[in-house]
């Protein structure tokens, strides 16, 4: 029994990683995926009921590291899946191009810390979470416009 739960969770994590590769394209992917999740009844694969991929990006407001209320549900779902598994997770903090590079490195770290603290409050082992900031050095979307910037102010949950 224990073993099968473990495999199920391992699979879920693998799916999260897969999602990480593909779902960072648009700002509203998070909402779309959450909608999909509630709409699709999990009947075809009862053994993998937790394996629906979660989006792995949370977005932030300009110059802010406070978690937006619309990201909390997603983070709670991540916490539910990570809790007690011992899975190592990298939280990669990013900033948009506005403002100075070194300050943005600090801002990216603050954002990743905010995600870490939230997950820890939800019972995830702090020792499994590594925070790293890339500041504005690795934008998800190039370009000097607000749409690109909104998608670059983010924390990516990896693994």
């Amino acid at each position, binding site marked *: 029994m224990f073993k099968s739960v473990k495999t199920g969770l391992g699979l879920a994590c693998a799916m999260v990683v897969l999602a990480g590769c593909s779902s960072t394209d648009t700002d509203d992917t998070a909402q779309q995926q959450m909608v999909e999740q509630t709409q699709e009844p999990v009947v075809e694969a009862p053994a993998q009921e937790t394996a629906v991929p979660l989006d792995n990006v949370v977005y932030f407001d300009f110059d802010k590291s406070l978690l937006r209320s619309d990201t909390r549900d997603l983070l709670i779902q991540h916490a539910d899946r990570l809790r007690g598994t011992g899975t190592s997770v990298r939280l990669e903090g990013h900033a948009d*191009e*506005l*403002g*100075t*590079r*070194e*300050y943005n*490195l*600090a*801002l990216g*770290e*603050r954002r990743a*810390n905010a995600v870490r603290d939230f997950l820890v409050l939800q019972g995830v082992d702090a020792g499994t979470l590594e*925070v*790293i*900031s*890339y*500041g504005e*050095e*690795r934008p998800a979307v*190039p*370009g*000097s416009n607000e749409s690109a910037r909104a998608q670059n102010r983010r924390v990516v949950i990896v693994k």
Partner: protein
Amino acid sequence: MMNKLKILLSVISVNCVLVLSAQAQMVVEITRGNPDPTPIAVAPFSWSGGGILSEDVSDIISADLRRSGLFAPVPKEDMLSFPKSPDEVIFRDWRILGTEYVVTGRIEPQANGYLLTFDLTNVFGQSKMFTKQVSGGRDQLRDVAHRAADEVFEAITGIRGAFDTEMIYVRESASGGRPVYELMRADIDGARSRSIRRFSQPVMSPNWSPDGQEVAYVSFETGRPAIFRENLRTGARQQLTNFKGINSSPTWSPDGTKMAMVLSKDGNPEIYVLDLNTGRFTRMTRHFAIDTEPNWMPDGKSLVFTSDRGGKPQIYQLTLATGQVDRLTFDGDYNARSRVSPDGKTLVMVHRSRGVFTIATMDIRTGQMRLLTETTLDESPSIAPNGAMLMYATKRGDRGILAAVSLDAGVKYNLPSQRGDVREPAWSPYFD
């Protein structure tokens, strides 16, 4: 006689072609000039060696003086004669053109290089101001030109020239669909750019050692940001930090024995000073806010840095002996990444006003702030060692380019853009 002249002419015309092709690579675009620049003529120099010189030395000097914004060099085609020495300068000819100074020069071959003898003549005073010599190796003709330009500039303005300096900057380009990050090095006029090192992960915050022999920077090559120092001549390098969290903003102390930096191993970004002789780290700030972007005052006794301890990023000064912190900037809700002028009197920084990021200066004593640029995404100001100009990064469309502006805002120019996205210029110190 006829034959000789022909050869000379063909030499001149070939020279022109060479110069044109060289300039096509790097056209400096002056976007704002001094309203009353001093007219000066750098007459084409003679060359007593064989073959053709790879660079037009007098042209490089003219370009240097023009870029300073303080001079209006006379175009070669407007000159009525090409004097090679002060006794060939016909004052009446130059007075007609309104030229105030004439530079003449002669280049001779030397063992493994060149010797330039050049003179500065004051047209209205009808007197020679100096005759000087500069020499350089076979591949140093541009350095010879920049050194001569420095001498002319200083003799007329009283300010030490900074044409014979370099810059290091970051270039991001793509190769096979993957980003390539490079530390680049170039002459301060943008010429002779070459790669110092290539990375597949981001590299940022290059900072020169005060002797101009080394560079410190932040590289993500280990999977997290780490500070490195690298010898520019030998390529030997050393990783200085590998702490959990941020390792960033390395800046060498004026005497070269210490390095200020930012580490977040304590939970949030704090300013540290690393003693490069003992390897000991000393924590300088204790605050839950972001403390970052340290820079040394020229006397080495205090640091200026960015902190959002007041709610928004502002510039603060930290006295090292006492640990006392004083806020320096009060205008605007975003002032960051400051650098101090060599005389310690002026701060330059990234300043946001009305949602736009520009470069501003502030008189440290009076607190008087002044905007130097009016584009929207200007950052990373780096001051010349003579304090006259600064280089910064800005955007043209979606691409990063480098630009320069004088600290009195009178002169502004864009450096020739090149392949990829360029940013974070660091102006070198003097090399002597």
